[in-house]
């Protein structure tokens, strides 16, 4: 039906002229195959070119288009209008982040937390490998240990879903901790002790109260909640076994 429409209530905020964010309502064409991102692009093209939002791949792999859709963090390229039609859809920027402009959030804090967990392979001094040394060999079982945690696209839906993120701004957060575990569990990596100094801390795993919503909203099934609880078990094992081997650092 070419005339069917669906209502979008979109949060607007232009800091140079607005004191507070407010909602603007748009009547958008309803198409069976459209996602919320299509609707936003239609608004930008046809109604209001000043509407600002992030997006890129439109197929769920870049992690750019995360927003709150009816109060739930979602990739707007994966939220179909037909799943909400005929009710109105409320679109807001990701929760627990400061708003930059309209639907765009400030990511600096997250970027700092991500870098802090050293998300790259670390080799001990003297054990670095050059290209001439050939490839690392890794068995399917060794790959399976960390593969799930490597699927993160940094979309930050988990940060928006996590109540601790809203209550405790210093919390390192689900994605960063899952990524730290991804490297700690990678057989090619030798930097686990360095990363443990970052994540086995109050601001990281011990702030998590295992609400579990991060894993529920994750579009790539990374299971950051699992990563964090498994990290707690590892931290506890490390802690208690360190009493048995006090000579180790």
């Amino acid at each position, binding site marked *: 039906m070419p005339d069917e429409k669906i209502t979008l209530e979109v949060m607007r905020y232009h800091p140079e002229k607005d004191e507070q964010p407010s909602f603007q309502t748009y009547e958008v064409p309803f198409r069976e195959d459209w996602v919320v991102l299509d609707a936003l692009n239609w608004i930008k093209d046809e109604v209001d070119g000043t509407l600002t939002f992030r997006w890129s791949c439109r197929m769920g792999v870049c992690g750019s288009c995360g927003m709150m859709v009816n109060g739930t963090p979602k990739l707007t390229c994966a939220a179909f209008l037909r799943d909400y039609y005929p009710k109105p859809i409320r679109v807001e920027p990701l929760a627990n982040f400061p708003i930059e402009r309209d639907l765009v959030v400030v990511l600096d804090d997250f970027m700092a*937390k991500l870098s*802090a967990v050293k998300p790259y392979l670390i080799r001990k001094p003297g054990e670095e490998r050059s290209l001439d040394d050939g490839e690392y060999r890794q068995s399917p079982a060794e790959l399976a240990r960390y593969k799930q945690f490597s699927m993160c696209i940094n979309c930050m839906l988990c940060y928006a879903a996590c*109540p*601790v993120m809203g*209550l*405790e701004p*210093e919390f*390192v957060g689900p994605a960063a901790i899952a990524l730290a575990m991804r490297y700690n569990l990678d057989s090619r990596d030798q930097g686990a002790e360095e990363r*443990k*100094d*970052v994540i*086995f*801390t*109050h*601001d*990281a795993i*011990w702030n998590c*109260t295992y609400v579990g919503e991060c894993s529920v909203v994750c579009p790539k099934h990374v299971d950051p909640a699992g990563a964090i609880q498994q990290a*707690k078990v590892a*931290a*506890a094992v*490390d*802690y*208690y076994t360190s009493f048995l081997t006090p000579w180790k650092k």
Partner: protein
Amino acid sequence: MKHKRSNEPLFWAPFIAGGGVAALFLPALIFITGIAVPLGWVDASQLANAATNIIGRLFLFVLISLCLVHWAHRFRFTLLDLGVHGGRKLIAFLCYGAAIAGALLAAWLTLW
């Protein structure tokens, strides 16, 4: 971000143990004291007999202590989740302190 490994496992491990024993034993025990007794299935002498038996004593000591630590640790974080940001060290001291006091009392009542 503070880069110092936390001592939290000192409390977290007993918390998990407490959650486990509570999960396994509490429903039946609550049924016994809360429903079986009023129904007349269990009387005072049966209760006393179980609680004075050496296995019963050890069991109750461990159960009470672990349940109290489980409460203390979880309650500390529930307060954070309810928006209570300040006084963290004091709250931790009071919660774990109460749990330890309860465990000592349990020891005196069961093992003495």
